[in-house]
Protein backbone atom coordinates (compact mmCIF):
# COMPACT_ATOMS: atom_id res chain seq x y z
CA UNK A 1 0.00 0.00 0.00
CA UNK A 2 1.28 3.47 -0.75
CA UNK A 3 0.79 6.55 1.41
CA UNK A 4 -2.14 7.99 -0.51
CA UNK A 5 -4.05 4.72 -0.30
CA UNK A 6 -3.38 4.45 3.44
CA UNK A 7 -4.38 8.08 4.03
CA UNK A 8 -7.55 7.59 2.01
CA UNK A 9 -8.57 4.50 4.02
CA UNK A 10 -8.03 6.19 7.36
CA UNK A 11 -9.50 9.58 6.50
CA UNK A 12 -12.66 8.04 5.07
CA UNK A 13 -13.09 5.73 8.04
CA UNK A 14 -12.55 8.32 10.81
CA UNK A 15 -14.63 10.88 8.90
CA UNK A 16 -15.14 14.04 10.97
CA UNK A 17 -12.51 13.45 13.62
CA UNK A 18 -9.87 16.15 14.06
CA UNK A 19 -6.72 15.56 12.15
CA UNK A 20 -3.32 17.26 12.24
CA UNK A 21 -1.37 16.43 9.08
CA UNK A 22 2.42 16.77 8.85
CA UNK A 23 3.93 18.97 6.16
CA UNK A 24 4.92 17.72 2.71
CA UNK A 25 3.22 14.92 0.83
CA UNK A 26 1.17 13.79 3.84
CA UNK A 27 -0.82 17.04 3.93
CA UNK A 28 -1.06 17.11 0.15
CA UNK A 29 -2.41 13.56 -0.05
CA UNK A 30 -4.97 14.23 2.66
CA UNK A 31 -6.08 17.45 0.99
CA UNK A 32 -6.46 15.59 -2.29
CA UNK A 33 -8.43 12.60 -0.99
CA UNK A 34 -10.53 13.97 1.88
CA UNK A 35 -10.43 17.70 2.50
CA UNK A 36 -12.62 18.95 5.35
CA UNK A 37 -12.59 21.84 7.87
CA UNK A 38 -11.44 19.60 10.72
CA UNK A 39 -8.15 18.90 8.91
CA UNK A 40 -5.21 21.06 9.99
CA UNK A 41 -2.57 21.04 7.25
CA UNK A 42 0.95 21.94 8.22
CA UNK A 43 2.78 23.94 5.63
CA UNK A 44 6.17 24.13 7.31
CA UNK A 45 7.61 23.42 10.77
CA UNK A 46 8.51 19.81 10.08
CA UNK A 47 8.32 17.49 13.06
CA UNK A 48 5.72 19.38 15.04
CA UNK A 49 2.46 17.69 14.00
CA UNK A 50 2.58 15.49 17.09
CA UNK A 51 3.17 18.49 19.37
CA UNK A 52 0.33 20.52 17.87
CA UNK A 53 -1.91 17.46 18.17
CA UNK A 54 -0.88 17.04 21.81
CA UNK A 55 -1.69 20.69 22.61
CA UNK A 56 -5.18 20.28 21.15
CA UNK A 57 -5.73 16.87 22.79
CA UNK A 58 -4.89 18.33 26.22
CA UNK A 59 -7.37 21.18 25.83
CA UNK A 60 -10.14 19.14 24.18
CA UNK A 61 -10.13 15.91 26.20
CA UNK A 62 -13.56 14.83 24.95
CA UNK A 63 -12.57 14.98 21.30
CA UNK A 64 -10.40 12.38 19.61
CA UNK A 65 -7.41 13.93 17.89
CA UNK A 66 -5.61 12.10 15.08
CA UNK A 67 -2.09 12.98 13.99
CA UNK A 68 -0.82 12.03 10.53
CA UNK A 69 2.95 11.87 10.78
CA UNK A 70 5.80 10.52 8.69
CA UNK A 71 8.92 8.65 9.75
CA UNK A 72 11.17 11.61 8.88
CA UNK A 73 8.87 13.97 10.76
CA UNK A 74 8.73 11.72 13.80
CA UNK A 75 12.50 11.31 13.97
CA UNK A 76 12.90 15.07 13.87
CA UNK A 77 10.86 15.48 17.07
CA UNK A 78 11.45 12.17 18.79
CA UNK A 79 11.30 13.85 22.19
CA UNK A 80 7.62 14.46 21.53
CA UNK A 81 6.94 10.73 21.99
CA UNK A 82 8.24 10.95 25.55
CA UNK A 83 6.17 14.06 26.30
CA UNK A 84 3.04 12.37 24.94
CA UNK A 85 3.84 9.14 26.80
CA UNK A 86 4.47 11.08 29.99
CA UNK A 87 1.13 12.90 29.80
CA UNK A 88 -0.85 9.92 28.39
CA UNK A 89 -3.70 11.78 26.66
CA UNK A 90 -6.50 9.22 26.21
CA UNK A 91 -7.84 10.96 23.13
CA UNK A 92 -4.65 11.02 21.03
CA UNK A 93 -4.10 8.70 18.07
CA UNK A 94 -0.73 9.06 16.36
CA UNK A 95 -0.59 7.53 12.87
CA UNK A 96 2.89 7.22 11.38
CA UNK A 97 3.30 6.47 7.67
CA UNK A 98 6.67 4.82 7.46
CA UNK A 99 8.43 4.39 4.12
CA UNK A 100 11.93 4.76 5.62
CA UNK A 101 12.49 7.77 3.44
CA UNK A 102 12.08 11.50 3.07
CA UNK A 103 9.82 11.08 0.06
CA UNK A 104 8.82 14.76 -0.22
CA UNK A 105 12.43 15.79 -0.78
CA UNK A 106 13.41 13.05 -3.22
CA UNK A 107 13.35 9.76 -1.34
CA UNK A 108 16.49 10.08 0.75
CA UNK A 109 16.77 7.33 3.42
CA UNK A 110 15.77 7.67 7.09
CA UNK A 111 16.96 5.62 10.06
CA UNK A 112 13.77 3.55 10.28
CA UNK A 113 15.35 1.03 7.91
CA UNK A 114 17.30 -0.18 10.94
CA UNK A 115 15.46 1.33 13.91
CA UNK A 116 11.99 0.22 15.05
CA UNK A 117 9.71 3.15 15.79
CA UNK A 118 7.19 0.76 17.34
CA UNK A 119 9.66 -0.24 20.05
CA UNK A 120 10.43 3.39 20.87
CA UNK A 121 6.70 4.16 21.06
CA UNK A 122 6.03 1.14 23.30
CA UNK A 123 8.79 2.25 25.65
CA UNK A 124 7.12 5.68 25.70
CA UNK A 125 3.77 4.36 27.03
CA UNK A 126 1.93 4.17 23.70
CA UNK A 127 -0.33 1.30 22.72
CA UNK A 128 1.17 0.27 19.41
CA UNK A 129 -0.29 -1.32 16.26
CA UNK A 130 1.78 -2.16 13.21
CA UNK A 131 0.08 -2.49 9.83
CA UNK A 132 1.20 -3.68 6.40
CA UNK A 133 -2.06 -4.29 4.51
CA UNK A 134 -5.21 -2.24 3.78
CA UNK A 135 -7.64 -4.76 5.31
CA UNK A 136 -5.74 -4.83 8.58
CA UNK A 137 -5.73 -1.05 8.67
CA UNK A 138 -9.53 -0.91 8.56
CA UNK A 139 -9.80 -3.55 11.28
CA UNK A 140 -7.43 -1.72 13.58
CA UNK A 141 -9.30 1.54 13.12
CA UNK A 142 -12.49 -0.17 14.33
CA UNK A 143 -10.62 -1.85 17.16
CA UNK A 144 -9.09 1.33 18.59
CA UNK A 145 -12.47 3.01 19.02
CA UNK A 146 -12.77 1.31 22.40
CA UNK A 147 -9.14 1.75 23.44
CA UNK A 148 -7.71 4.68 25.39
CA UNK A 149 -4.71 6.50 23.99
CA UNK A 150 -2.05 7.38 23.45
CA UNK A 151 -2.21 5.02 20.50
CA UNK A 152 0.37 4.72 17.74
CA UNK A 153 -0.50 3.08 14.44
CA UNK A 154 2.61 2.41 12.44
CA UNK A 155 1.61 2.00 8.79
CA UNK A 156 4.36 0.54 6.67
CA UNK A 157 4.03 2.03 3.19
CA UNK A 158 5.79 1.80 -0.17
CA UNK A 159 7.03 4.78 -2.12
CA UNK A 160 5.00 5.81 -5.12
CA UNK A 161 5.47 8.08 -8.09
CA UNK A 162 2.03 9.65 -7.72
CA UNK A 163 2.22 13.20 -6.42
CA UNK A 164 -0.90 14.94 -5.09
CA UNK A 165 -1.84 18.50 -5.96
CA UNK A 166 -0.65 21.35 -3.79
CA UNK A 167 -2.92 22.70 -1.07
CA UNK A 168 -4.65 25.77 -2.43
CA UNK A 169 -5.72 27.15 0.95
CA UNK A 170 -3.75 29.86 2.73
CA UNK A 171 -2.33 29.18 6.19
CA UNK A 172 -4.90 31.57 7.64
CA UNK A 173 -7.79 29.84 5.85
CA UNK A 174 -6.59 26.50 7.20
CA UNK A 175 -6.44 27.91 10.72
CA UNK A 176 -9.74 29.79 10.66
CA UNK A 177 -11.91 26.98 9.41
CA UNK A 178 -10.19 24.47 11.70
CA UNK A 179 -10.68 26.67 14.77
CA UNK A 180 -14.28 27.41 13.90
CA UNK A 181 -14.96 23.70 13.62
CA UNK A 182 -13.03 22.75 16.78
CA UNK A 183 -14.38 25.44 19.07
CA UNK A 184 -18.03 25.72 18.04
Amino acid at each position, binding site marked *: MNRKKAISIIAKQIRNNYLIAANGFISRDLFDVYDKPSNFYMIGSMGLASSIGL*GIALKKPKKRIFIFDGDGNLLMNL*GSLTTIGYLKPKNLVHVVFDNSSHESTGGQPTHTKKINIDKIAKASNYKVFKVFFPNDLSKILSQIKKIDGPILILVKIKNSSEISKRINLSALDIKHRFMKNLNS
Partner: protein
Amino acid sequence: MNENNQRKLFDYLLKSKFEGFVGVPDSTMKYFIDQGLKQKKILITTREDESIGIAVGMSLANSLSVVFMQNAGFANSISTITSLVQLYKIPLLFVIGWRGYLKNDAPEHTKIGEIQSKLLKIIDLQSKILTDRNWKECARWAISQLKQNISCVLICKKDFNE
Protein backbone atom coordinates in the same frame (compact mmCIF):
# COMPACT_ATOMS: atom_id res chain seq x y z
CA MET B 1 14.03 40.28 38.27
CA ASN B 2 14.11 39.23 41.90
CA GLU B 3 12.45 36.10 43.27
CA ASN B 4 9.38 37.85 44.60
CA ASN B 5 8.57 39.63 41.35
CA GLN B 6 9.16 36.52 39.25
CA ARG B 7 6.57 34.71 41.38
CA LYS B 8 4.19 37.67 41.13
CA LEU B 9 4.56 37.76 37.34
CA PHE B 10 3.59 34.11 37.11
CA ASP B 11 0.51 34.62 39.29
CA TYR B 12 -0.44 37.73 37.34
CA LEU B 13 -0.32 35.88 34.00
CA LEU B 14 -2.26 32.96 35.46
CA LYS B 15 -4.97 35.34 36.68
CA SER B 16 -4.98 36.99 33.25
CA LYS B 17 -6.39 33.80 31.70
CA PHE B 18 -3.17 32.22 30.49
CA GLU B 19 -3.83 28.51 30.86
CA GLY B 20 -0.81 26.82 29.34
CA PHE B 21 2.76 27.43 30.51
CA VAL B 22 4.98 25.31 28.30
CA GLY B 23 8.72 25.46 27.90
CA VAL B 24 12.27 24.46 28.64
CA PRO B 25 13.72 25.76 31.93
CA ASP B 26 16.16 28.63 32.25
CA SER B 27 17.96 29.74 35.39
CA THR B 28 17.19 33.41 34.68
CA MET B 29 13.52 32.71 35.46
CA LYS B 30 13.73 29.79 37.84
CA TYR B 31 11.38 31.36 40.43
CA PHE B 32 8.80 32.12 37.73
CA ILE B 33 8.90 28.46 36.72
CA ASP B 34 8.91 27.26 40.33
CA GLN B 35 5.79 29.29 41.06
CA GLY B 36 4.05 27.45 38.21
CA LEU B 37 5.40 24.03 39.19
CA LYS B 38 4.01 24.48 42.71
CA GLN B 39 0.56 25.02 41.22
CA LYS B 40 0.97 22.20 38.70
CA LYS B 41 0.59 24.60 35.81
CA ILE B 42 3.90 24.00 34.05
CA LEU B 43 4.64 21.59 31.22
CA ILE B 44 8.35 21.01 30.62
CA THR B 45 9.15 19.65 27.16
CA THR B 46 12.25 18.22 25.53
CA ARG B 47 12.99 21.11 23.16
CA GLU B 48 11.80 24.66 22.66
CA ASP B 49 10.27 24.08 19.22
CA GLU B 50 8.28 21.23 20.74
CA SER B 51 6.99 23.66 23.38
CA ILE B 52 5.91 26.06 20.66
CA GLY B 53 4.10 23.28 18.80
CA ILE B 54 2.15 22.30 21.93
CA ALA B 55 1.31 25.93 22.69
CA VAL B 56 0.10 26.40 19.11
CA GLY B 57 -2.19 23.39 19.55
CA MET B 58 -3.56 24.89 22.77
CA SER B 59 -4.09 28.19 21.01
CA LEU B 60 -6.02 26.46 18.20
CA ALA B 61 -8.26 25.14 20.99
CA ASN B 62 -8.82 28.76 22.14
CA SER B 63 -6.54 28.54 25.15
CA LEU B 64 -3.92 31.25 25.78
CA SER B 65 -0.38 30.00 26.31
CA VAL B 66 3.01 31.19 27.50
CA VAL B 67 6.15 29.60 26.09
CA PHE B 68 9.28 30.04 28.19
CA MET B 69 12.88 29.31 27.20
CA GLN B 70 16.50 30.39 27.37
CA ASN B 71 17.87 32.52 24.54
CA ALA B 72 19.78 29.48 23.22
CA GLY B 73 16.36 27.84 22.81
CA PHE B 74 15.03 30.90 21.08
CA ALA B 75 17.83 30.55 18.54
CA ASN B 76 16.77 26.91 18.09
CA SER B 77 13.19 28.00 17.47
CA ILE B 78 13.47 30.70 14.83
CA SER B 79 12.22 28.55 11.95
CA THR B 80 9.26 27.36 14.03
CA ILE B 81 8.41 30.95 14.91
CA THR B 82 8.53 32.13 11.28
CA SER B 83 6.93 29.10 9.59
CA LEU B 84 4.32 28.22 12.21
CA VAL B 85 3.60 31.00 14.72
CA GLN B 86 3.89 33.88 12.26
CA LEU B 87 2.67 32.12 9.10
CA TYR B 88 -0.57 31.03 10.79
CA LYS B 89 -0.74 34.19 12.96
CA ILE B 90 -0.96 32.34 16.27
CA PRO B 91 -0.87 34.64 19.31
CA LEU B 92 1.68 33.36 21.86
CA LEU B 93 3.52 35.03 24.70
CA PHE B 94 7.19 34.12 24.81
CA VAL B 95 9.20 34.62 27.98
CA ILE B 96 12.83 34.39 26.92
CA GLY B 97 15.86 34.50 29.21
CA TRP B 98 18.77 36.74 28.41
CA ARG B 99 21.94 34.86 29.17
CA GLY B 100 25.06 36.70 28.11
CA TYR B 101 23.61 39.99 29.32
CA LEU B 102 26.41 40.24 31.86
CA LYS B 103 29.87 40.36 30.36
CA ASN B 104 31.15 37.62 32.68
CA ASP B 105 28.41 35.04 31.97
CA ALA B 106 29.51 31.58 30.74
CA PRO B 107 31.18 31.69 27.28
CA GLU B 108 28.49 29.79 25.36
CA HIS B 109 26.08 32.67 26.01
CA THR B 110 28.27 35.52 24.78
CA LYS B 111 27.36 35.56 21.08
CA ILE B 112 23.66 34.84 21.40
CA GLY B 113 23.42 37.35 24.26
CA GLU B 114 24.97 39.93 21.96
CA ILE B 115 22.63 39.35 18.99
CA GLN B 116 19.38 38.44 20.78
CA SER B 117 17.76 41.90 20.50
CA LYS B 118 18.73 42.17 16.82
CA LEU B 119 17.37 38.69 16.07
CA LEU B 120 14.03 39.58 17.64
CA LYS B 121 13.84 42.72 15.52
CA ILE B 122 14.82 40.94 12.31
CA ILE B 123 12.00 38.42 12.70
CA ASP B 124 9.53 41.18 13.68
CA LEU B 125 8.84 40.00 17.22
CA GLN B 126 8.04 42.90 19.54
CA SER B 127 9.66 42.61 22.95
CA LYS B 128 10.04 44.33 26.31
CA ILE B 129 12.68 43.77 28.96
CA LEU B 130 11.32 42.87 32.38
CA THR B 131 12.60 44.70 35.46
CA ASP B 132 11.55 44.74 39.10
CA ARG B 133 9.81 48.03 38.48
CA ASN B 134 8.07 47.51 35.15
CA TRP B 135 6.99 43.83 35.12
CA LYS B 136 3.30 44.50 35.57
CA GLU B 137 3.28 47.16 32.87
CA CYS B 138 5.12 44.72 30.56
CA ALA B 139 2.61 41.96 31.29
CA ARG B 140 -0.31 44.28 30.50
CA TRP B 141 1.35 45.30 27.25
CA ALA B 142 1.86 41.65 26.29
CA ILE B 143 -1.77 40.81 27.01
CA SER B 144 -2.95 43.70 24.82
CA GLN B 145 -0.67 42.47 21.99
CA LEU B 146 -2.10 38.97 22.22
CA LYS B 147 -5.64 40.34 22.16
CA GLN B 148 -4.77 41.84 18.78
CA ASN B 149 -3.57 38.40 17.70
CA ILE B 150 0.11 39.42 17.78
CA SER B 151 2.77 37.25 19.41
CA CYS B 152 5.31 39.06 21.59
CA VAL B 153 8.21 38.54 23.94
CA LEU B 154 9.05 39.41 27.53
CA ILE B 155 12.76 39.19 28.22
CA CYS B 156 14.11 38.08 31.57
CA LYS B 157 17.71 39.26 32.02
CA LYS B 158 20.37 37.35 33.86
CA ASP B 159 21.57 40.32 35.90
CA PHE B 160 23.08 38.40 38.78
CA ASN B 161 25.83 35.83 39.12
CA GLU B 162 25.46 32.76 41.29
